[in-house]
């Protein structure tokens, strides 16, 4: 499904590479977690895979398609849930979704049905005509998710989709993602919530300093380190306990 080969990224004003010669293969139907400390290169990798930034070197393909050759086809195939809300605060939830759904070529009755369906599934049907700037963080996250799945993407990239939301919202989001995955959507997601990733992901990769340091099913990784009881222990063993503040 996703084939990444020798992918690297170095930002103009940075001395170091954010992603270094990265090779990765993600199979169809997986829920793949990209885990790592702050500044490890997770968001950079997702941004490259979703066409937001240009790799310095290397290549990748999704379903055999590349952005260089099949940009629009590929964009129709994927969905991106950005870390920020990326919605219009003065528009209602419905208006936001109508516009963003239209950008995927959806229209008319089909678009309206899809919007209403997802709003209902994610518990927002009562608020569909309320402006986004009156929503809580959790509600905005759910609208953010709907905006990326209206077109039934084959691959869904999520950059920390549950950050800053209440437990109930987080639960609804994760449950909905599981349903999407069951319907055939491959999910690639980044998170700092290691417990969530351990429960949710079929496979994870721990990234640090732009390189993948370990990759596999969460249970397999935990079993590789006998002194570790969970994914967080594995994570701290591999990345250390030193703070990773960066500016």
């Amino acid at each position, binding site marked *: 499904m996703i084939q990444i080969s020798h992918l690297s990224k170095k930002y103009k004003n940075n001395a170091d590479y954010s992603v270094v010669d990265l090779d990765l293969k993600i199979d169809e139907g997986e829920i793949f977690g990209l885990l790592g400390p702050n500044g490890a290169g997770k968001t950079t990798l997702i941004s*490259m895979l*979703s*066409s*937001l*930034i*240009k*790799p310095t070197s290397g290549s990748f393909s999704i379903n055999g398609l590349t*952005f*260089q050759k099949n*940009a*629009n*086809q590929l*964009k*129709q195939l*994927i969905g*991106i849930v*950005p870390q*920020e*809300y*990326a*919605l*219009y*605060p*003065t*528009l209602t939830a419905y*208006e936001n979704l*109508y*516009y*963003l759904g*239209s*950008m*995927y*070529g959806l*229209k008319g009755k089909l678009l309206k049905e899809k919007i209403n369906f997802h709003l209902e599934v994610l518990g927002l049907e009562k608020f569909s005509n309320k*402006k986004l700037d009156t929503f809580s963080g959790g509600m905005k996250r759910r609208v953010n998710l709907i*905006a990326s799945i209206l077109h039934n993407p084959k691959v869904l990239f999520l950059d920390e989709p549950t950050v800053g939301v209440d437990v109930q919202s987080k639960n609804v989001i994760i449950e909905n993602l599981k349903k999407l995955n069951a319907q055939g959507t491959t999910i690639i997601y980044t998170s700092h919530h290691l417990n969530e990733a351990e429960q949710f992901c079929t496979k994870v990769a721990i990234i640090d300093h732009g390189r993948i340091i370990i990759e596999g099913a969460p249970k397999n990784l935990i079993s590789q380190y006998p002194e570790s009881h969970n994914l967080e222990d594995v994570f701290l063993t591999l990345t250390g306990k030193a703070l990773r503040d960066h500016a």
Partner: protein
Amino acid sequence: MHKLWASTYKELLLLSRDIGGLAILFVMPLVLVVTITLIQDSTFRSINDNKIPILWVDYDKGEVSKNIYDGLAESKSFNIIGKESDSEAKELVFKGKYQLAIVIPANLSSELEKKVNLNVEGLLSKFGLEEETPQSEKADLEKKEVILYFDPATQMAFKNSIKNGIDKMIFKIETQTIYKAFQSQITDDETEAIFDTESFITFKEVTPSIGKNEIIPNSVQHNVPAWTLFAIFFIIVPLSINMVKEKSQGTFVRLRTNPVSYLTVLGGKTVIYLAVCLIQFGLMLGIGVYLFPILGLPSLDVSGKIPLLFLVALFAGLAAIGLGLLLGTVAKTQEQSAPFGATFVVILAALGGVWVPVFIMPKFMQTLSNLSPMNWGLNAFYDVFLRDVGLMDLVPELTLLFLFFVITTAISIVYNERKNAV
């Protein structure tokens, strides 16, 4: 097409929910055009109700000073306030209490008459009609100066017009005194008209006309097109802010991951902001036609010109939007786009001849002026309002405005693609 429609609808919703933005877009230009027209109206009026108070110090008390005084009074531009001393008048003017003081020197009338008489007698003696005037009498005459004190803040144009006006009056008085001196030397009968003292050469201004109706320029015909154009171009500020906001909200980033072209995104903005320009223009015309007469200003004459005026507004709007799209694409923050946009419009307006006519600019600035889309737009508006031209005469200016829109939009798209190339 559906994506363009959705983008347009989204822009409409965003704009309709921004009350402050709407006020800036619609109310401020109207306030601007009314204010500027009211201020500039006096310069276009032949009869001015707002008289400028000036100080008058008359040490002469003779015929010459009376003629100058009458000339100033006849102009109906001044409220003449008499003062006894030169120093008092000077102090009041230099403190900015008055714009101007005129000081007529003592014995101006008698000395002028003496000088003219001497000259006339000298001339006649050459023909053997008079005895030669002694040189000592000529040497006794000293030159007289009419002193003008101007407030240091007075604009050069006002100063020059006053100086020219007084110079003309003095010249006329001198000429008439010469005629009088000849008359008195040649005949004793004062009623006998030997010289026709009326000016032989006069001038007549011929203005363009539609049929039998002359197109007489007034403050409204000049100000409405100029300041409407200024308002149309000011749209680059809210438009670029709208785009920068989308960047900071992250919605532009999301759109980059969607299968939609940047051209479509810009297309939605173009349609809505162009509609804003045309509505704004319609309101301006409405103000000119209906509100100005109520405010005591001349009514804007749009009879038979509305289709062409809207055509010019459409192309001027496109040029302004192209510039706004480019600024919004390049700017990263509102702090960059808003001040730059506002300042740039002012520069374009200055270059375009909105404030100072292009023909009085230095040569280099006149060349630069040809590059200002506001200059093209203003010329097109003046063509319609004041020169009564047809559609074909507007084609060069409309083409330039449209090309400007195409080029700025193309640069925006190329810049965006290069910056975000994958």
